[in-house]
């Protein structure tokens, strides 16, 4: 208990200080809605006011605060506000980069809509595609987009352009193992040829240096400089390959999403 406190205090008080200023008119409107929600006894209307307050924080780009406000809303599952609330949760989680959470919220939304297929919600659909891209499920994203091309006011040719590259994300573990197997290959697999060549040649040079030194009888030099440096470059290179693969997936997902958004207008 005591250490729990200590941690909270250490992290909360000593390190962080100073905050960004929130514009006055934002605070003013946020306060009005908070006051209205506070004085309202009807849960449904209370929820409505809090939703408005969360729009304000979303407007200034403070997505986390907006989401926190939404989480305070308690309304019955039959309330007409539910649709807007769930949409906001999906959107805010996507904007915060929590793709899995956003996707879960989306499934919940689908469940609450029931089996009625009439009227596909465009915005939800776009967010679903974006989430699939963020989750590196690019083939599924493409299929979904093609299925609903006419809803999205985008031609299937444009969709083909957006998803023109290879639709198979790089596997970070595969990159790691490849680099362990043959230094530098993992980086090349991740799409960074020069980095792969650099990493590979450094390690070849170090192996050569160690072997030569040991052969000539320089045991200390070969062991301490050659082998030790090789060890750090060998494992470090493999780790680097994994990170590059992840970064590449992220970058490709960003490009696709950005192109898709341009296409949708």
């Amino acid at each position, binding site marked *: 208990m*005591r250490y729990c*406190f*200590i941690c909270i*205090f*250490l992290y909360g*008080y*000593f390190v*962080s*200080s*100073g*905050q960004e200023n*929130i514009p*006055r008119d934002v*605070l*003013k409107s*946020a*306060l*009005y809605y*908070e*006051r*209205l929600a*506070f*004085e309202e006894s009807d849960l449904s*209307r209370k929820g*409505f*006011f809090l939703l*408005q307050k969360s729009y304000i924080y979303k407007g200034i780009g403070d997505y986390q605060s907006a989401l926190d406000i939404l989480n*305070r809303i308690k309304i019955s599952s039959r309330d*007409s506000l539910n649709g807007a609330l769930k949409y906001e949760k999906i959107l805010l989680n996507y904007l915060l980069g929590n793709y899995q959470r956003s996707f879960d919220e989306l499934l919940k939304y689908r469940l609450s809509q029931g089996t009625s297929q009439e009227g596909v919600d465009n915005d939800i659909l776009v967010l679903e595609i974006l989430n699939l891209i963020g989750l590196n499920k690019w083939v599924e994203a493409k299929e979904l987009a093609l299925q609903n091309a006419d809803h999205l006011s985008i031609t299937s040719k444009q969709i083909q352009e957006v998803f023109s590259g290879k639709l198979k994300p790089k596997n970070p573990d595969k990159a790691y193992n490849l680099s362990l197997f043959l230094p530098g290959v993992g980086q090349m697999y991740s799409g960074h040829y020069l980095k792969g060549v650099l990493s590979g040649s450094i390690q070849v040079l170090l192996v050569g240096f160690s072997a030569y030194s040991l052969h000539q*009888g*320089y*045991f*200390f*030099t070969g062991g*301490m*400089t050659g082998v030790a440096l090789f060890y750090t470059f060998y494992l470090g290179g493999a780790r680097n390959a994994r990170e590059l693969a992840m970064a590449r997936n992220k970058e490709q997902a960003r490009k696709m999403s950005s192109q898709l958004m341009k296409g949708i207008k």
Partner: protein
Amino acid sequence: MTISKRSFLIHISLLGSLWSFGQGFSDNDYQFLLHLESISAYDEGVFWLEQKELVLGRTDTTAFHLGMFEYFRKNRASSIRFFEDVNRSNLNFWNTSRFYSGLQYAYLGDYGKANQVLMQTDSLSELHAELRKLSLAGLSLLDHNFERFESFQTSFDPNYYQLVDHQQALLDTHHVMRDRKAKSPVIAGVLSAIIPGGGKFYLGKIGQGTMSLMTSTIFALQAYEGYRKDGPKSASFIVFGSIFSVFYVANIWGSVVAVKVENVNFNKTNHDAILLHMHIPIRLLCK
């Protein structure tokens, strides 16, 4: 549809709430204030209270809560300024604000002022009197005034479970600070020159000393190997010899500097610990 109906409702109630803005500080307002505190909306709270003050002028309630909100936002100087305007009329506000002011003065390093503010507390309960004693003891420790600390320490009451851990922590810190012997940079340097890492061992940093010794040994062995095999003019000896020399000199230099840095860090660590053990009970007991 429903949305437009609701926005109409909102419109009406907004006008209502705007109207009530001009009135005094009602009970409902006070509840709202506590609500803002409970949802951690400190920015909004400060803004709201400032708007209230424009109409009502500064009162005990607004000054106190502005101070508290600013404390939660970590704006210490501004928090202290608001607390200065709290009157003695409401004893709870008065005493709580004195405790938090004192604490924040201590964080800002103004121990004299902190002491003065803490002494202003009035008609305290036994528990809070003990809390004040703890805070004053912490302040004298921060000020390196060990005699004053010992005078407080002898009258510490161990019967309050909220305080007893923190009293013990202050006592421990006191022992650590009192028993520390100042380390000499000269000895550290000489020891490092005799055996690499010796200065670090002298400072009590066993791990660092070992790493220092290992680094120097690794380069020394390689230089020795070059010298033995190819003589003093070989590239291997010159390269590793110079690397060894740089690390050897750096190890002496580092030990000398480390004494100074270590003194600063020692004080910082202890001050942080003292402030922490002053802070937790105040946060728990003053509301």
